[in-house]
Structure formats: C-alpha cells, structure tokens
C-alpha cells in the first residue's frame, strides 16, 4: 500500500497576549491511499487545528506534513452555500476560482448532479434545499476538484440527529464509491466508528495520539448505517470510549 499522508513529530501552539497554548504535541501517523481515518478527542483538544495544518491553511511550528498528492478537499461544519448563487453555481465555485471551468468539468458536474439526485435542483437557491441535500451539494463542490485527500471537519454537526444519520451514511458511501482518502474529525464516537477504517484517539490538550483503533466489520455490505447494527460496533465503541476517558 502506498502512503498518501505522512505526519512526523507535529507540534503547534497558539500565541496571544496571555501567553502560549500548546495545541498539538509531537503527533505522528501515516495514512494509506484510499483509507478513511476518523479522529476523535475531547472538545477543544486541537482537532480542527490538525486539519487546518494538514490542509496548509496554517504552517506547523514544528514537524513535517508530507502529502503525496496534489489537491486537498475540505468540508467545513456548515455547508456555506452562497445564497446569491444557484446550486450549480455554488458547486462550480472552486472550478471558477482555479480557472478550471471547461466543457469537460462542466459535464462532470452534470454527472455528479444526476448521480446524487440534485439534477432537478441545479438552478434552485440553497434555501430551497433540505439540510441533507445542501450537505450533498457541499460535498460535490469539494469532490469536483478531484481531491486526493478529503478533510471533513465535523461536517454533520450542524444537522439534526435524524438527518445526521442519513447524511453521514450517504456521504460515507459516496466517499467509498469514489475511492477517496478521507480524514474525519468528530466528537461523535458512533459517527467515527461507523465511517472510519481506523479511529485515532487524541488526548486532551495538548493533543497527542493516545491510541489508534483499527476497525474491521464482517458485513456483506459495509455501510455506515449497517455498521451501527453490527455485533462488533459495541465493542469498538467501548474501546474508544475507554481510551478517551482514561485520564479524565
């Protein structure tokens, strides 16, 4: 297997007048191509910082992040669809910015729209769509850029519980079907276990890797929703839960 992301001895602090806060301390892990990693940790432990560093929005103070790929896609907590643009116009926003809007990419957008049930809403305003559909549109906006690595920063946390389950299932399946590598940051343990290949548990601030839990499910059809009913699920949940709360 080929590595897509290698993180070595990563440390990062925030600075303000009151002083310095160490957010991440000596983090190292390697991620394989096509892998789905879930990262969980106590709230405020620096999970989002980690994603910002991986995405290159921030420079790490110490350590290295090596990405073996060209592009990264980022999904934020909210969909941030721009209300003055139609769904189609929202989806091509990244292509527009990078001047990649060609007839080829346009037909790809059309494909995505049809495949994921948004074709009829291409010219609709974001406010006319349900929360789940909006999140799908946001995912297509990210996927259309053909990212080698997808970073998901609690992308379901703004949804109500019921929508959240179906959207997580939906988007998890899309990512698997498109054979993307993804890192999901969440504080929802069930979500982490139902979506990931491995769960990385971070300690409280300053975040270090507490343990890495590999997940294998003996399911015929391995989908996030089915995993929640699988016999292994409870065991994994307890393991991750214990790891998280050991020092609390």
């Amino acid at each position: 297997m080929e590595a897509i992301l290698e993180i070595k001895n990563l440390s990062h602090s925030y600075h303000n007048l009151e002083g310095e806060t160490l957010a991440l301390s000596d983090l190292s892990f390697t991620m394989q191509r096509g892998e789905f990693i879930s990262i969980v940790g106590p709230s405020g432990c620096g999970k989002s910082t980690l994603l910002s560093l991986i995405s290159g929005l921030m420079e790490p103070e110490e350590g290295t992040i090596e990405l073996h790929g060209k592009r990264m896609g980022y999904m934020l907590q909210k969909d941030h669809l721009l209300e003055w643009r139609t769904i189609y116009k929202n989806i091509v926003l990244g292509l527009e910015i990078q001047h990649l809007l060609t007839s080829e990419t346009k037909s790809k957008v059309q494909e995505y729209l049809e495949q994921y049930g948004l074709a009829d809403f291409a010219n609709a305003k974001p406010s006319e769509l349900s929360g789940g559909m909006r999140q799908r549109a946001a995912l297509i906006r990210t996927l259309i850029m053909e990212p080698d690595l997808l970073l998901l920063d609690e992308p379901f946390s703004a949804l109500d519980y019921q929508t959240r389950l179906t959207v997580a299932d939906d988007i998890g399946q899309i990512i698997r079907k498109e054979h993307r590598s993804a890192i999901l940051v969440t504080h929802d343990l069930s979500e982490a276990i139902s979506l990931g290949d491995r769960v990385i548990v971070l300690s409280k601030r300053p975040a270090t890797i507490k343990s890495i839990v590999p997940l294998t499910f003996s399911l015929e059809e391995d989908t996030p929703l089915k995993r929640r009913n699988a016999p292994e699920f409870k065991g994994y949940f307890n393991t991750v839960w214990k790891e998280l709360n050991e020092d609390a």
Partner: protein
Amino acid sequence: MHEASKTQISAEQIAVEGVSTKQISARQSQFLKELKKHRLFVQSARVILLVGFLLLWEVTSYFDIIDSFIFSSPSKVALCFWSMVLDKSIFTHIGTTLYETIVSFLLVTVISILLATILWFSKKSSEISEPFLVVLNSLPKSALAPLLIVWLGATPTTIIVAGMSVAIFGSILNLYTSFMSVEEETLKLIYTLGGKRRHALIKVVIPSSVPAIISNMKVNIGLCLVGVVIGEFLAARNGLGYLIIYSSQVFKMDWLLMSIVILCIIAIALYGIIGIVEKWYLKRL
C-alpha cells in the same frame, strides 16, 4: 418603510389569489376587507392632513391672520414657481443642485467602496486609519465648507466636494464594517477551494454586502443633498441653496418656501430612484 412596502405587496398578492381561486373563507375575506379599510383610512388621513394644512395656511394668510409677507401662502408659492417656469430660471437652479448632488453621490459611492475594499484587504491600513476616520466622521462637515471655498474657489467643484465631505467618511466606515461582518468560516471555504484573498472579496464579501451597499446609498443620497445645499449657501450663483440664501436676504419669502418645497420633492425623488434600484436587485436575487 421597506417592511411596510413588503407587507403591502404580499397582502395584494393574497387579495389577487383570493379573487382568482375564489376559495376564500368568510374570516379571510373579513380580514382582507378590514386590511383594505385600514389602508384607505391611513391614505385618506394623509391627504386630508396635507390639504388641510395648505388650506389653513392659504386662508389665514388671505384674511391677514398671519403676515403673508413673512409666511407667504401656497398660492403665492405656486404663482412664484409658475413665473420662474415661464422665464426658465427655475430649471437652471434645479438642474445645478441635481447635477451637483448626483455627481457627489456617485463619487461617494465609488470612492467609499474602493477605500473600504483597501481597508478590508490590509488589516494594517484599517488599524492605522481607524481613529482618523472616526474623528473625520464625527466632525460637523459644514465647518469644512468655508475652508473648501478658500482652497478650491467658489466653483461647482467646491460644492460637489462639500456634498461628498458630508457622506464619505461615514460611508467608508459603514461599508468596511459590513465587509468585516462576513463570517470567517465562509472566507475559509474560499481558501480551502484554493482561492486567495481577492477571490474571497469578489466571490463572497462584495456579493454578500450588496444589501448594505444599497442601504448605504439611501443614506448617502440624502447627506449629499445636505452637503450640496450647505455649499450653495456659501459659494454659488446658481442652485436651490443659493436661491434660499439669496431670497432670505432680500425677504422674498415666496422664493424661499418654494425652494424648500422643491428640495423636499428632489429628496423624495432621489430616494425613490434608489428604492427602484433595490427592488430591481431583490427581484434578480
């Protein structure tokens, strides 16, 4: 005012739909009837108030209850207006004031958008200039007019600059505040899609600030008119401000009151034009 026009539209739509489908409950039609009655009452009360005021003014001045030399009268104002229409002098005055107001308004709009953009782009420049902008904004701008006359001379340019000086600082501050109120996370979206700060400006900040820009324009058009009239008080041979100051000095109260009435109408008309622009924009949305 905006809210009121919105509810009016929706109420009319309801009424139209009610007629077309003819499926309307007794309570609903009762409600619509009362709404109509209420609106009719408000409208007629407004007309009655205006007409009553004019009548009272005319009658009291006709019977010398008030001094018609000082207070003039509606008929005198109207006659005065008509005579100035006949010798065409009124068009010069109205034209001058309108021209100066519109030019200064357009300049304020363009310049304040540009400067707010620069301040948004560079946090340093906004931090440095903030206290100066705040002071200039709270300064009574009429104090600047005499200075402008000395520097620029008694020309239409001076008056345009005077008009601008009233509106520009507040306009910059308002627009900058609106630019800064865009959610940080939405800007992050642009950066995660590989965009730079200028993309954030063009794709997110400006489009999301259009409502603020329009409401800012509504304020500015009124302020520019104020500035222009102040400028004309001090340094003009034409324009309604000049007419007001001149007529007060020679006790031509008909001229003075007529000028004020015309200024009222100009203010309403200019505000109305921006209202139309706003409606057009909302429809496009």
